[in-house]
């Protein structure tokens, strides 16, 4: 580059064009970079605690029903099977993130958005869901229900 700069004549125009062009690119980048950075949402610390004590009491969940609970920032579903056993899963449908519900008429977990069905082990049995629901561990300590992520 430097010998072009030193030569007089039409190369001077070339240098000016190169200089202006580079400056223009640098200017655009220096505007676009912070704007793009601004658009990307910052990471907010998610509650990493893998264990949640529910506000629900064991008696609140009747056999063959289900309840949504807060597991960190996402919903979970607590189910009491017809035989009386408590089970908990992530309530986030593995298809497209809708929140699932318990269907007493089918004894299945069901997603209303695209008609996805899961059995009571969280396994996807019909409809579009590609994977089973994440399973949580349920512990009943006296009148408290404690749900934790399986290790």
């Amino acid at each position, binding site marked *: 580059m430097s010998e072009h700069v030193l030569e007089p004549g039409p190369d001077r125009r070339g240098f000016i064009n190169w200089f202006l062009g580079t400056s223009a690119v640098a200017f655009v980048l220096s505007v676009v970079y912070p704007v793009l950075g601004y658009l990307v949402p910052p990471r907010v610390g998610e509650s990493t605690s893998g264990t949640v004590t529910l506000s629900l009491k064991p008696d609140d969940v009747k056999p063959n029903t289900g309840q949504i609970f807060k597991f960190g920032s996402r919903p979970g579903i607590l189910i009491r099977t017809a035989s009386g056993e408590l089970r908990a899963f992530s309530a986030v449908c593995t298809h497209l*993130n809708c929140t699932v519900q318990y269907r007493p008429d089918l004894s299945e977990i069901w997603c*209303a958005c695209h*008609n996805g069905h899961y059995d009571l082990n969280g396994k996807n049995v019909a409809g*579009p869901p590609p994977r089973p629901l994440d399973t949580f561990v349920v512990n009943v300590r006296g009148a408290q229900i404690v749900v934790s992520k399986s290790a």
Partner: protein
Amino acid sequence: MEPAEPRHGRLWMWLDQRVGLKDLEKLARKKEIPVHRHGIWYYLGGMTLFLFIVQVSTGILLLLYYRPSAEEAFESVQFLMAEVQFGWLVRSVHSWAANLMILTLFVHLFSVLLLKAYRPPREITWFSGMALLGLALGFGFTGYLLPWNELAYFATKVGTEITSAVPGIGQFAGRLLRGGDEVTGATLTRFYGIHVAILPATAVALLGLHLYLVQRHGMSVPPGVEREGGASRVMPFVPNFLLRDIVGWLSALAVLAALAAYFPAELGKKADPFLPAPAGIKPEWYFMFMFQTLKYLPSHILGIEGEVAGILAFGLGGLFLLLIPILDRRTARGQPSRLFTWIGIAIILYMVLFTILGYTASATK
């Protein structure tokens, strides 16, 4: 025949010397509309434009009461509907005109497709029109969330998750769109900004290009009519065609008012992230054919997840539609192009069939 020089008053002369009204008048008088049996389709673009103007006007009015946050959005719309004089009317007209605009836009698109008006030199008119369709769907998708009700919340969860499912950049694009990993108040604020600032600014710029090109190339005469020797006569745009346009616009306004009065926009229940998705949840009707297709796809197709396959297929379909002016070589050469007529009809039938299925097939099996 040269029209007689119109007589003008002093104000007109004064303005003409400063702004150049004479040139504008000449431009307006130059535009002519061919008259032939497919002429009815020429009104659809203008109708869409009229409804867009209605959207901008009612949208500005809604801005005066709406509050874009998860805590206040639902309540502010409730207040608007219940307390503000004619608040229900403005919101209902906004909601209905949005639907009618998408409808006329689709009819406009398919009439242009079937009458092959996309052929050279109008390829860029077609591309800008397709981009405007994308923007209109973006308007619909972002606007749907703003009342922050249950249906909108889950529709947005699904819609943004579809973005995230796109291989490669999906995860990043989903986060960018949602303003985080979940649909939250941050998403609402972001959608609001997109809906009232980014999309309108982009739409006005693209609309300018689209209208400029329509003006530059004049109205396309369908190849079938051209082969029969062209349109038998023309009518001036000002005033003959414009007056017909206005009759259509006033009728549309009457229809809008009637729809808004008899079927006002609903609000439903406030969104709660910790309630299950309600049964019977559905998106706006113009997304219904895609929504219904996603329901029918199995969980895995050829080793990839069903919804990813579906999204890829719709993406390719959209790309194909966009590139039709380049792909349809026969029409470009001035030959009849049966294949692309049938492709157009197949797309229309597919969309209509799956939309109907979306409203009639049982949601719960």
